[in-house]
């Protein structure tokens, strides 16, 4: 019993320690944008663009496929459930709101956590083990400025962009399905969606995506930089990063919805 309590206590302390470390890291990453030039170490725009390409542009095909699938799936379920009440013609309301407020940010968050968050953790943990981070420090290059800030900025720009893209693709693919099933024109479906959507709904989804982007970047960096134990440690850090990121995304999503929607 005492042993179990001790284990719980140790893990709780370690968890708090990591949260503190993550908070400090986030603050330092953002601070480098402001103080970089004064410290003769500006954040390079080229590094941010490289990250934006890797996180955003290269993820477009898979993001498009998943968003289209989610859109069609929502259309099928929406038509079925509303059909029970003979209200299929109102399916566009559920589709428009659930895609923009919930499914797009969530699916893009999970996709980027699995794709880019894990890559970030693997890259940083390998660099830590190979002393590459030490090498950067002795050269005089701050690793947070050089590695973390560009990744964070890349995420902060591209995750909302991908979310917007996912909104478009999700609603369009749902529209194609609905227009076929209900024999209404695609244009009429789009006009109804535009009519029902407010800027607030889009901002709700985009707000979430900004939070998810921050969580994915920081969780990836924390797990990557705290790695121990060689190649096995790299695998552990990568897995841990994905599990933590997805858990954090789902929990944050619920808390965000609770605070903003009620």
């Amino acid at each position, binding site marked *: 019993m005492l042993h179990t309590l001790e284990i719980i206590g140790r893990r709780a302390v370690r968890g708090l320690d990591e949260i503190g470390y993550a908070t400090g890291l986030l603050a330092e990453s953002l601070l480098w944008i402001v103080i970089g030039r004064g410290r003769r*170490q500006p954040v390079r725009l080229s590094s941010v663009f490289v990250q934006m390409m890797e996180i955003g542009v290269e993820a477009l095909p898979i993001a498009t496929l998943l968003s289209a699938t989610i859109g069609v799936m929502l259309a099928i379920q929406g038509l079925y459930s509303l059909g029970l009440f003979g209200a299929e013609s109102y399916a566009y309301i559920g589709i428009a709101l659930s895609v923009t407020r919930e499914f797009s940010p969530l699916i893009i968050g999970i996709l980027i956590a699995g794709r880019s968050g894990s890559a970030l953790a693997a890259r940083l943990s*390998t660099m830590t083990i*190979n*002393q590459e981070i*030490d*090498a950067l420090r*002795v*050269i005089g*290059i701050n690793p947070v400025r050089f590695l973390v800030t560009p990744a964070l900025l890349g995420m902060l720009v591209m995750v909302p962009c991908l979310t917007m893209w996912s909104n478009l693709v999700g609603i369009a693919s749902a529209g194609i399905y609905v227009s076929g099933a209900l024999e209404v024109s695609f244009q009429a479906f789009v006009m109804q969606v535009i009519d029902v959507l407010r800027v607030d709904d889009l901002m709700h989804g985009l707000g979430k995506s900004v939070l998810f982007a921050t969580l994915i970047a920081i969780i990836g960096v924390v797990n990557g930089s705290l790695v121990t134990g060689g190649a096995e440690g790299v695998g552990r850090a990568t897995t841990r990063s994905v599990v933590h990121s997805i858990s954090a995304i789902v929990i944050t999503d619920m808390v965000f919805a609770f605070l903003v929607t009620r």
Partner: protein
Amino acid sequence: MPETVLPSVAFDGAKNATPQAPVIEIAHLDAHYGSRQILFDVNLEVHPGEIMVVMGGSGSGKSTLLRLLVGLERPSAGIIRLFGKDINRLGPNEMLDLRRRIGVSFQGGALLSSLTVAENIKLPLRELTRLDEKTMDIMARLKLEVTNLSGFGDLMPSELSGGMLKRAAVARAIIMDPSLLFFDEPSAGLDPVVASALDDLILRLRDAMEMTIVVVTHDIESAFKIADRITVLDKGRILAVDSAQAIRNSSNERIQNLLHRRAEQEDVDPAEYLRRIAGDA
């Protein structure tokens, strides 16, 4: 106790024998990892133009000493001065200026695996200077030539052999023309021929570029080949600081054990061992 108390001994091993202010001064240095003490009251000076080899067995504290010297760790007590400046009291910009004057070649090379060899070598120039691309290319090519790596600049680090990786790491370490260069286990993992070629490179760098060089190694043959003076570390304490010849002829039993790779009889108290491990955790 050290056989030689360094501050009172004039350095005459390197070609420049004129007394000059030491490049490195270490005074009463202690270091801990968690609750475990690694270094105990280390005092040492390294003079301009000399090659100082820090030697010792596994767990002697030589790697910790190197990490303290290059500013990767902070000591729990004591002072480290590089070029007369206490490195633990410098502001960020002063530390950056100091870092431009030192180079470090890590054991495994520590080249960034996502960059080519040439990009790795140019990295300090790109990040810390405002030189144009053409000048950086010329400087990188020169350093590749110095380290016998001409023509390998476009390869990725994963495409290099162990010896080439280490030479590429040296090329990156000297790209800013530092006056102080650190090597961590330069011959580790290399066959004797390649290790000897790397020793020659270290000697050439000292002679041609007038660098002060600190080499941390457990390779005795290499140490005697390149060292002007040798510091022997044992269990976190300095056993001796002296010329290579004096170290070879030392009557100290521990030094002779190290030189002849003789394992020492050590009574291990299981309780103490467990306490140390718990301390590490």
